[in-house]
């Protein structure tokens, strides 16, 4: 287990609102990290900072030990699945995949597992604008996994997916973990995090409330279900 991503003292303000308040943590390979937290707790901002889409006001982002703020090369080791995928309207699914392959200049054989599992090949001729939300989500997922990245960052991956598609995605995530990859997932569906995650990070108002292995949390609280663990840990503080 090597440390792949390290955040140190990340701060970010949007206008007057401080979204990230001094976040420091690291993420290791062979691990599935579930990032939880209420709306507006800074989950997406943290993810976007890692991807260089949001530029933090302060703090370092390191990838395999090198500082990567404002660089782009490290992104070839990252696969990202956005919350809502929007693609050029007139482009067809097949063209989108070809374009991404072309832009990324990838010489490795692309991972087409999800394309096959979701039967996207039969829809290659469909323009993106005609696709349903779920299908777009499938396309986003397929794109994220396509380049055999060392790190997968999935922002609410199962929102909008049907149960079968969700199951396929979960299996894929577990398979990637077995390949010693790091998977970072944000989700509001606790049962899902429980099923997949090794480690749980809870963000609250821009701070890390806790970041611990699921097993340790279960030990600590004596509860098995993640929902109950969260209620325990979070209400205790307020009492």
């Amino acid at each position, binding site marked *: 287990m090597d440390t792949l991503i390290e955040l140190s003292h990340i701060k970010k303000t*949007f206008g007057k609102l401080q979204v990230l308040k001094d976040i420091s943590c690291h993420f290791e390979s062979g691990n599935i990290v579930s990032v939880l937290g209420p709306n507006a707790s800074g989950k997406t901002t943290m993810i*976007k900072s890692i*991807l*260089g*889409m*949001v*530029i933090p006001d302060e703090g370092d982002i390191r990838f395999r030990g090198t500082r990567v703020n*404002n660089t*782009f*090369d*490290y*992104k*070839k080791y*990252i696969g*990202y699945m*956005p919350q*809502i*995928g*929007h*693609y*050029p*309207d*007139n*482009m067809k699914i097949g*063209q989108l995949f070809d*374009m*991404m392959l*072309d*832009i*990324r200049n990838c010489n490795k054989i692309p991972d087409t597992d999800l394309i096959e599992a979701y039967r996207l090949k039969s829809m290659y001729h469909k323009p993106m604008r005609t696709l349903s939300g779920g299908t777009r989500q499938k396309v986003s997922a397929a794109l994220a996994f396509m380049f055999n990245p060392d790190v997968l960052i999935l922002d609410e991956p199962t929102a909008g997916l049907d149960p079968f598609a969700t199951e396929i995605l979960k299996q894929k995530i577990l398979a990637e973990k077995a390949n010693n990859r790091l998977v970072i997932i944000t989700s509001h569906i606790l049962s899902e995090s429980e099923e997949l995650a090794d480690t749980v990070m809870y963000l609250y108002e821009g701070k890390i409330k806790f970041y611990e292995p699921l097993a340790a949390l279960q030990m600590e609280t004596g509860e098995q279900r993640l929902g109950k663990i969260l209620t325990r840990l979070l209400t205790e503080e307020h009492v």
Partner: protein
Amino acid sequence: MFKIAKYIILDIIRSKVLIAYTLLLATICTVIFLSDSDVIKGLVSITTIVMIIVPLVSIIYATTYYFNAAEFTELLVSQPIKRRDILLGEYLGISSSILGAFVLGVCLPVALFALSATGITLMVAGGLVTLSFTSLAFWASTKTRDKSKGIGLALMIWFYAAIIYDALVLLFLFTFSDYPLEKAMIVLTALNPVDLARIMILLKLDISALMGYTGALYRQFFGSGTGIAFSVSMLFIWSVLPVLLALKIFSKKDL
């Protein structure tokens, strides 16, 4: 960068808006040339129309496209590509598509009906105006956060350049009519790409006498080789500077 431009062009070609724009320009030009046997008069009419429509369509289309492609830009930023290359690629793609529409819609009819020095000046000026306003569109888009504000700013820029500016210049002339304003007027013209282009064409048409005293002044300055070189290079700056500013904003922008 070129790959991104290529895919954006491929995307735009498939949309109907730009085709409609091309057809509109081509129809206007052809109708004007066919209805009037005087080619020079035709060129004047085309100039008047082109200097209103071309900036408007360029700036609004580019702004709208930029905002519609915002999520796509986001996707590209998450890929191993320099931010600089993403924005430049988008500018290259969008501007060359709009320029292509201008070439087909205006340059082609002009070349067929009125190929002359004036015709070529119209082509060059129109092309540069297209580039300037696409460039300004990028500045407006990166400067603002959401689509409605972006389009609002773009419209304001167009409104300023195409309409308000002339009124401001007139006001300025009246207020300071006791002073020699020759140099100041030339500087003022340079502040508006539409004016630069319009004056370039009108001077080539040799009807600058119609523009009175300032016309004679412009003739003296712009009519000469240096004048043309000055206005072309000013228009060139208008096509480059806003994009450079946009690049600067974009490199620090949160998506």
